[in-house]
Every structure is written in C-alpha cells, then in structure tokens.
C-alpha cells in the first residue's frame, strides 16, 4: 500500500497582497521555485495559515499566468480573517488544485455567457482571463459577461471591469442591487440582465457562480431563454475541508463536490437533491 500523506501543505510565498474592498483581499502566490499550480479555471486550493487552520479558496487567475497564481478572499471565517492580516513576504500553506473546473477545450467555437453574482466573480475570473487572453480570444465566439453586485462599493477587480467594458470583443453588462451615490447604471438583481440578451441558442454555453440563492433564478431565466440544461455550467460552494473526498463535509447526496466539482454541468446535477 504505497501512499503518501495527502494533508501536508506546500509552503508558498505571498508576493503581492492588496485590499480590494472592506471584506475582500487579493493575493498573488508563488509556489516553490515559481512552479505553476497547474490548475484549470474554476478549481480550488486548500490554503493554510500557520497556527490557525485551513480553508478552501478558489483560484482566481488563469492557468495562462505563469510563475504565480491569484486568489481573492472574503474574510468571514477564522482562517480568512487571519489571511487578511498577512503581508507580502509572508508564507501560506497550499494543497491542490482540487476537483474539476471548466473544460475550456469544450467551449471552443462557442459563445460564452458568464454570470457572476458578487464574490462568484472570483472563480469565474479564472475562466474569463483564459478566454479573453489575446492569444486565446479567437478560439471562442462571443464573450458576454454579466456581473451583479450589492452596490458599486463591492465591485471586485475594478481595473479589469473597466477593461472588459472598453474592449470591443467583450460584451459586459453590470447591475447593482442597490444604488449608491455616483451610480448611473442598471439597478436590479442579476436576472434582470438576462431577458435582453440575444443568444444563438445552438451555440452558447453559460457559466454561473454566485450566492446559493442565485442559481435557481438564473437557471430558470436561462432556460426560459431557450438554453438547454447541458449548456449550463455551475460552480457550487460547499464546505470542502479535506479536498480529497474523505471528510464528508462537501457531499451532496452521493457526490463529493471537492472531487467531481466544484464546476458541474447542470444536466449532471439537475436531479441531485440538495444541489441547487
């Protein structure tokens, strides 16, 4: 029985850290020797803070980025609150990447609708930055990004949002739940952006990530547009503690999200109770 300890993290360096909003912080992480993480868009890693613990965190950069990878972390638990206090040069433990992300090979030639609610933009950014990379962009059809945030104050990746808005080969639509001073754009939940989309129903896929409540409504809306279940991809949030399909916390019925997900084709999980 040759097997090695699967729980020991690798020690990595924080090379850049930047506060993004009140709760969210950006990290650029370098593995030993600048080795690539080797992830696919949508996968996650387990991040350890010395003396505190470990938490599952989405990778937010594309695998096309070499030498380091990025994460954006909302500080809501003991590990993520401790992470917020770290500085460039500090060390973190990393295990992973785990599970399955978006298979971009399957998306080639297709129009891609990305629907991000709040912090759901964090894992989806790894997909966005893959398909809008100048060297990759021509492999895909239209790129449509729908982004919903509570208010404009909670926008993530602000510089990039501006770039997406200004690029001719990206259709970017944004809405906020609540208008605050200085906002002149759309107000309303993210589903309000869907009815106006003109889609080539036979050649479109949608990738969805957001708070748990969002999925049901977004999926209903996309279906009523005429998209089929197998054209929809969702990234599901669960409590992925061990990352290796043992500890049980992320299980949805018979499925371990940390192994088969967090990205699923919706047709695969449609009948899975407790999934959406």
């Amino acid at each position, binding site marked *: 029985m040759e097997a090695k300890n*699967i729980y020991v993290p690798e020690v990595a360096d924080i090379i850049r850290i930047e506060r993004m909003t009140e709760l969210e912080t950006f990290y650029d992480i370098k593995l030993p020797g600048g080795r690539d993480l080797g992830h696919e868009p949508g996968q996650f890693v387990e991040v350890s803070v010395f003396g505190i613990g470990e938490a599952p965190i989405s990778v937010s950069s594309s695998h096309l980025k070499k030498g380091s990878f990025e994460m954006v972390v909302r500080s809501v638990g003991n590990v993520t609150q401790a992470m917020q206090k770290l500085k460039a040069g500090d060390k973190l433990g990393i295990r992973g990447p785990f599970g399955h992300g978006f298979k971009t090979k399957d998306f080639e030639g297709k129009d891609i609708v990305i629907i991000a609610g709040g912090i759901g933009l964090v894992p989806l950014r790894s997909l966005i930055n893959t398909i809008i990379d100048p060297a990759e962009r021509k492999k895909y059809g239209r790129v449509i990004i729908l982004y919903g945030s509570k208010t404009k104050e909670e926008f993530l990746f602000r510089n990039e949002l501006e770039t997406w808005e200004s690029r001719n080969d990206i259709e970017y639509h944004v809405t906020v739940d609540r208008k605050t001073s200085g906002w002149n754009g759309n107000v309303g939940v993210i589903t309000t952006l869907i009815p106006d989309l003109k889609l080539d129903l036979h050649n479109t896929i949608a990738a969805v990530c957001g708070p748990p409540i969002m999925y049901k409504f977004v999926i209903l809306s996309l279906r009523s547009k005429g998209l089929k279940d197998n054209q929809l991809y969702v990234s599901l949030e669960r409590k992925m503690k061990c990352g290796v399909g043992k500890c049980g916390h992320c299980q949805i019925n018979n499925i371990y999200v940390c192994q088969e997900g967090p990205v699923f084709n919706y047709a695969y999980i449609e009948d899975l109770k407790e999934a959406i």
Partner: protein
Amino acid sequence: MSSKAIAREKIPDAVSLLKAKYRVIAPVPKGKTFVFKKIGNPQEVVLDYNTTILPLKKFFLPPDEVIVKYNLKKREYQEPEIESEPTVFFGIHNYELQGILRLDYAFGTGVKDATYLKKRENNIFIGVTYTPDDYHFAESVGIPTDLKEGFDIFLTKYNGHYRVEALTDKGKNIVSQWSEFLEDCSYDGDPVVHFKNKLKQSVAGIREIFHGAYNHPVWKETSKKCYSCGTCNLVCPTCYCFDVSDEVVLGTDQGARSRRWDSCQILGFTEVAGGEAFREKRYDRVRHRMSRKFAYIMDDRDRPFCVGCGRCIRQCTADISITDVMNALL
C-alpha cells in the same frame, strides 16, 4: 488433516503467547458492556460478548489524530510519524472486520489516505462466532455469522471449546505456535444462528429503493425523535467523516493539525463561512446518514456501508432504530 480446537480455559495461554510478539487488542468487560483494548493481563479477554461500545475503527481512524505537524518559527509543515506496530486483533466479530474492509475501501480508493492505510499494515485478525442479540442484523446486510472474509484465524464456539481454523499463512503460523494448547476437534459445521432483528428484505436492490424514497414520510417522522446528538455516527463502524482543526502548543513554536470524528447529524456539518448550511432541516440530515449507508456509498462489490452491528440502535439516545426506518421503506 483433522481440525483442531482450543478449550475455553486455554484462551489466556494462547493470548499470552501472542503477546510475546504482538500488541494484542481484544474485547474486555467494562461495567455491563465491553470495549476493545490493548491487553495487559490475558485473563481479561472475553470471547462471549455482544458488542463493544466503539467499533475497531478507533485504532485505524482514532477519535483525534494528528495529520500534519508544523513549526511556526521555521514555517514548515511536516508529516507526523504513524505507528504501525504488529498487532493481533483477537476475538473479533465478523461484522466488525467488515466495517474495517469498508473503511479500507473509503480510504484506499480515489485519493489514497496514507494516514489511515499505514495503520492497516501488520494487522492479524482472529475472529470468533457470536450469538446475535436484539440489535444485531448483520445477516440482513449480507454478513451471516459464518462469513470469514478477511480473518487469518477463525474461532467457532461449541461445547466450551472453539474450533480453530487457520485461513491464511499468517494464521497457520500462529496456530502452529499454539500446538500445545490445541486438541482434536469433534465439531464439524457451523452453528445455526437466528437473528431477532432483521430487514424485511435483503439488501440487493436497496439502492434503487433509496433513490425513490427521498420524500418518504419516514424521514420527517424519525427526525421528530432525533436530538442530532451524533451518537450514531460515533459508534458506527463505517462512519468516517472528520473535522479538521489546528492547535498550537502554548509557549512553543510547535503546532499540529488534527482530524476528529465528526457528525453529519449536526447542523454545522455543512455550514460554509458565509453562514449557509446545505442540510438545514433535521430530516435532511437523518436521511443523508441512512442514505449514505445504503445508497450513496457502496464498495467495489456493491456492498452497503452498514454492517448490521446494531450499535446505532443500541446506543441511540432517542430510541431510533435504523432497521425500523429501513423496514418502513422496504
């Protein structure tokens, strides 16, 4: 070759001899119940017992176990050393070993878990027959009392004696060392055993029944009695979910990350940092546990993750019986 037997009064001698070479784990009395324990005095060993409080899993997946060590100053994570002392598990009921075989499947397939698997090296299992009480229902889940899978030696009780069957080379080696305690065996065959606690039908096809039973009223009815205390998880031979937490030794740079037995019956089990819990209702959790046993996880031979030991019924604080629940579905 005629078969051999050992008289009951010679058992301590046989255990003594094992102790010279191995750590010996066996059932011993504790009040009115029994526990598995490392044997000091061979006279402590009992072979007539119903079931121990905790299953053998406590030796392979301890209730609290260090999985990673670290040094705060050096910023290093290290693999803890795992002991795999040669051990004889003596006087083991077959459902107990079936529980271990299910854990082997859980920790040995997909990503292999060395922290568990290492402790499964250097084990010898010596089984013994038992008389089912009001709780055992192993036969209903495909484990009749004469199933000897996984044992190195199997002891079958008759007339104050145990027939000794060596089933592997390791077993034969031990039996040859016992020769001075053995006599010729006059008993041939296996005792006829009746289970009082049963499922209405065998487990074949049970997975399909579960898949159609998601909204069955039995879940809500059962959950009205359940306190979500998690005892059923702790005493179950095939429950292996765990929580992970870190601790630093006060005044030092040494820290450790441990895994501890956890319970899917507790609300916080699925709760993410944002506050969302994905099996919020108690009946969702009751259904999840039992579905996990009979539908969600099966081994490579399609065998359920319930071995019919009856512990979850015997020790339930709310008198919930998994066989009653199952029989409502069947």
